[in-house]
């Protein structure tokens, strides 16, 4: 409480000074006296690998370099200064932990830079061990207060124990805020990943044991007008592995320096006091958090990320084009109708608590600017916005035949690129979209009663947990707020207030848009489930993945449709892993999986009951 903050070396010493480490040594000695020195050496090695250090010279030089690069790359970095200054003021009475979104390698560099500019102690950031293998850079990052965390703890218990202690001591005795990425890795598709609980639990430990009075978690959304790694992400999502982090790779990547990436936005949320969130049980020697508290806290953070992320005009434009593509099967749209929808969406999103940039007076001009920054995705021609510049001049063409004779509506890279911008908005609107879909399918069935709707809504929210993890935060509440949202924006209206019967209302543009955000997911899962039902042999997950991928491609080719997520590996793999989690697929002894036909069949009937359009003719007649 009145101990002085400790230096990086002190923190390591403190880890070796714990009762736990004493016990490790004793146990090692008792097993075999020669063991002890081996264990001690190993422990010191591990701590050396983990431990951060701080070199003011490195930090200053790096800051200079960053300013140079940023000047070339970006127009500006925006920060919600008032919240940050408030944070700065409140620092000191308990440890602060920044929990930013992770969309780019730039995240932690810029985070350090922003703190540096605001004269806040640069946070100690948990960095993946991959960086350490980069020549020089690995140590440079360490000198700017990064500590290294292995991707997997499983194979090394000593490492796990020491790492946990290290984090505990950083929080209890360190002089800097901490920073970690709750998603564990960069999200490659603009959508929040399912949170990881491991590091979060470690952060709670010193609080649970009483070593610190509280821990304040600060969600931060770092948004970019355009991702630095845009084209890498698009490739990775199609299954091309990411290049290994290397210094030569970094130098090669300087080609990205030639383009303009617009703005970055740092949106600091209000600190979440762990004291108010985590129940403590006394009388337990090794205090553990209640699992439910952790999952709830994690989804609160993700949910906050989604509300904090900055949605710019480019996102809104992309949503319109996506909607046009998925629903109408068209790749171009008139500038005017884009502008109308952009305006409408902006209001809708704002009313739902999202952070949306203010539009300029001349929307059309702003939309044209979008097409400049994102020239690889969209182009503006003759008063229309187009996703497909191959078909320039063909007017409202909606398909083209590639050399190998396959039907291709738009270039796959471009479709996936589109998703990068659609997904942040999809994450905001997921729950109302899902509820809308359930209500609209239900209205065609008999017995449209509220509890059925609510139950289906909740079941599906769980089904899509991997896709939209934040939807599970306060699910009870989310059902109500989604309903109110749909009523408020005239997507549905109530025909029988007592029985809660709803039918489609007048705001068709919004309904159209929400529908296009959700139904490909249902459709995709349905198609994959149908395909899996036909597989009788035990297969590896890779085999299942390939089968499903082919199914989705075939479906699109066959129906001359384009659902961008169908092209991506994460979509298929999260479906498979969900099915494994829900035991629709079960593991056999040899790392293979078998289908549980009864469960899959019931899922199929559940999903088909939602009555989504499966083929061309029904699609156009649906709405």
């Amino acid at each position, binding site marked *: *409480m*009145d*101990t002085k903050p400790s230096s990086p070396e002190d923190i390591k010493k403190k880890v070796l000074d714990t009762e736990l480490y004493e016990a490790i040594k004793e146990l090692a000695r008792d097993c075999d006296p020669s063991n002890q020195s081996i264990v001690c050496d190993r422990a010191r090695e591990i701590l050396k690998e983990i431990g951060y250090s701080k070199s003011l010279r490195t930090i200053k030089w790096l800051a200079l370099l960053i300013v140079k690069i940023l000047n070339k790359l970006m127009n500006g970095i925006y920060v919600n200064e008032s919240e940050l200054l408030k944070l700065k003021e409140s620092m000191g*009475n*308990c440890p602060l932990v920044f929990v930013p979104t992770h969309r780019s390698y730039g995240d932690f560099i810029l985070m350090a830079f922003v703190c540096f500019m605001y004269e806040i102690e640069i946070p100690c950031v948990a960095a993946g061990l991959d960086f350490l293998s980069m020549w020089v850079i690995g140590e440079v990052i360490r000198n700017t207060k990064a500590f290294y965390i292995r991707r997997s703890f499983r194979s090394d218990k000593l490492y796990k124990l020491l790492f946990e202690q290290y984090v505990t001591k950083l929080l209890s005795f360190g002089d800097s805020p901490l920073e970690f990425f709750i998603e564990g890795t960069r999200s490659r598709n603009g959508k929040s990943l399912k949170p990881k609980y491991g590091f979060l639990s470690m952060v709670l430990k010193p609080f649970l*044991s*009483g*070593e*610190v*009075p*509280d821990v304040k978690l600060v969600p931060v959304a770092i948004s970019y007008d355009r991702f630095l790694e845009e084209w890498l992400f698009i490739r990775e999502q199609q299954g091309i592995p990411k290049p290994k982090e290397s210094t030569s790779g970094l130098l090669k990547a300087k080609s990205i320096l030639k383009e303009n990436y617009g703005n970055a936005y740092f949106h600091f949320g209000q600190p979440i*006091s762990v*004291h108010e969130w985590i129940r*403590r049980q*006394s*009388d337990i020697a090794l205090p553990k958090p209640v699992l439910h508290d952790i999952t709830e806290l994690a989804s609160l953070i993700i949910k906050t990320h989604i509300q904090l992320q900055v949605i710019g005009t480019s996102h809104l434009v992309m949503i319109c084009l996506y909607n046009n593509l998925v629903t109408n099967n068209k790749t171009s749209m008139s500038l005017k109708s884009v502008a109308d929808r952009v305006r409408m969406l902006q209001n809708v999103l704002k009313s739902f608590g999202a952070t949306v940039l203010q539009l300029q007076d001349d929307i059309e001009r702003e939309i044209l600017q979008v097409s400049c920054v994102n020239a690889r995705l969209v182009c503006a021609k003759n008063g229309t916005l187009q996703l497909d510049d191959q078909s320039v001049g063909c007017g409202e063409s909606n398909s083209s035949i590639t050399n190998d004779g396959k039907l291709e509506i738009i270039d796959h890279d471009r479709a996936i690129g589109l998703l990068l911008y659609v997904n942040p908005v999809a994450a905001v609107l997921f729950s109302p979209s899902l509820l809308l879909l359930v209500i609209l399918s239900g209205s065609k069935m008999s017995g449209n009663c509220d509890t059925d709707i609510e139950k289906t809504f909740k079941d599906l929210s769980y089904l899509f947990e991997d896709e939209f993890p934040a939807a599970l935060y306060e699910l009870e509440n989310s059902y109500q707020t989604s309903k109110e949202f749909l009523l408020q924006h005239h997507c549905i209206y109530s025909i029988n207030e007592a029985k809660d019967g709803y039918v489609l209302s007048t705001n068709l543009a919004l309904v159209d848009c929400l529908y296009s955000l959700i139904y490909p997911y249902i459709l995709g899962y349905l198609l994959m489930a149908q395909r899996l039902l036909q597989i009788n042999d035990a297969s590896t997950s890779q085999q299942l993945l390939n089968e499903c991928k082919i199914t989705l491609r075939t479906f699109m080719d066959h129906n001359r449709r384009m659902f961008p997520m169908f092209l991506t590996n994460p979509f298929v793999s999260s479906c498979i892993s969900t099915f494994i989690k829900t035991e629709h697929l079960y593991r056999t002894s040899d790392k293979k999986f078998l289908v549980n036909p009864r469960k899959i069949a019931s899922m199929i009937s559940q999903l088909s009951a939602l009555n989504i359009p499966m083929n061309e003719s029904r699609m156009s007649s649906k709405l």
Partner: protein
Amino acid sequence: MVRDNSKIPKWLAEEDAKEDPYSLEQKLMDYAMCKTKLNGIIPKNRNEVIKWNGWGYNDSKFIIKPVGDGLVAFTGNRYPIGDLDLPHFTQWVKDIFEVDINHKNHPAPLPPPEAYPKSLASQEFLEAVDKAGISKSLDGVDRLVRCHGQTLHDIYTLRFNLKKSIPRIPDVVVWPETTEHVVTLVALAERMTMVIIPYGGGTSVSGAVTCPDNEPRPIISLDTTQMNQIFYVDKKNLLISCQCGIVGQDLERFLQSKGFTVGHEPDSYEFSTVGGWVATRASGMKKNVYGNIEDLLVSATMVTPSGILHKKGLHPRQSVGPDFNHVILGSEGTLGVVTEVVLKIRPVAEVRKYGSVVFPTFTDGVNCMREIAKQRCQPASIRLMDNEQFRFGQTLKPAGGFFNAIVETIKKAYLTNVKGFDLERICVATLLFEGSKKSVEQQEARINNIVKDFGGMPAGEKNGERGYMLTFVIAYIRDIGLEFNVVAESFETSVPWKHTLNLCRNVKYVIGKECARHKVKRHFISHRVTQTYDSGCCVYFYFAFNWQGLDDPVGTYEAIEAAAREEILANQGSLSHHHGVGKLRARWYKSQVSELGENLYRQAKRALDPNNVFGVGNLLTDEEPPLKAKL
């Protein structure tokens, strides 16, 4: 040889035919055993000596003198700071709480006789009491002054809410003088469906003597202060047998005149009674030498509706099943009235010496206390106050050198060899040694050696003495605080050594956080370690805030204290070290003793008091009494 009888008192020299020789022998025996009835400091009319709406003596209080911008002073001559101006304290109050010293809340006056609610006591009961020769009163003031203890809620209610309404007060006050009187009263209450609340010094800070608001039965306030008989002082076995109503300071004054002491000095011992100590499991400042009340108590007599609980004999220790003294200890007036006790006594120590030690930080101080406890070489008392309390203590000095001896000592030492003392961080331990001259010297040397290992150094005898004197004065501060929109209260816990520092830090943090949440603008929180044990210590918190702008200061205070208590429990602290559970902490009782433990207590209550005559409502949170009396 003829004896010269002229120097022998007449009553011994000549045998009086009328006098029974046996009676003389009895008289002499009594004399040898010091049998006597004490004239205690608390008279039947309590309010003649003791404040009816605040702490302590009527003549001792903090006042504001109209000098300059107002100047705080302490009245009376009972304490060393009496009749002195306190300019530093005045400034401290202004700085910490931003109070406007010229704006005063005037407490409500005693209500006029006709304002009190009519007594519910039946004529039949009153006649029976008279017949038994027990003194009683139906007077409104007598009843009002016995309706409460010393919690913030009690005092605030009397000072400010009395203007609106009078709280639930006892219907009749009785002053029994013997155990037989008490047996009679309990039987009457049992028969006539009445409630008895035993009342001693009235210093409870847990709500344990406060009349329950919703009690429909007539309430008898059983004032024990007239039960102040000493039965004997057994100099051979070092025991004293006495009645329960004897006040701590009276007991000590009496015993010390005979060369003995019980050595039990809770901070309230000027006013609290022997029976109250037993009923709340009190702890005394000098417990390291003399023990806490459970160590001092050899035998007790408790009158319950089902009979008298009293174990046979005065054995130094016994293995005769569970010790039912421990049913009496901590029963908080819910099972019966403690009427007589036998306590251990010790010869008065040859030397009593104060001391003080200063540490660079509170952490160093706690670590040192832990080491001293580990070596089991604690002096009679050792207390460690944090920096806030140290600074506060400095302000309660008359005009003159502000930072006095302690600072001087540090400065001198700083120049020579010690570094790292920061006035914003230092903390001070006060020490009290008792024993033979030689043993005190040895104790002191040993302590100083350990202190050195923890970066501390001796800071003089005067500072120690001041520290202990302030203990008694601090209790008076709340009353003046209330006059200037400041509520102040203390709460305590006991905690294992391992968690002590965490608990102190975390509770301070929670208080700060809760103050912000409740929009409290200025607050003061400080803590000190007041007792040490082998495995842990007692931590005492002082908490005060300026309630300007708040509608319900007491509610706010209670909410914040509850949050602090939750934090204490989460940090492995106990529900109470010595204040007791009462009503204030009843909501946590079950969680601390387990469900079975609570049930065990309920069954004991059922056996001893099936109709809930002792319905003061402590320990349990039930809306309904455990077994409702048939009306």
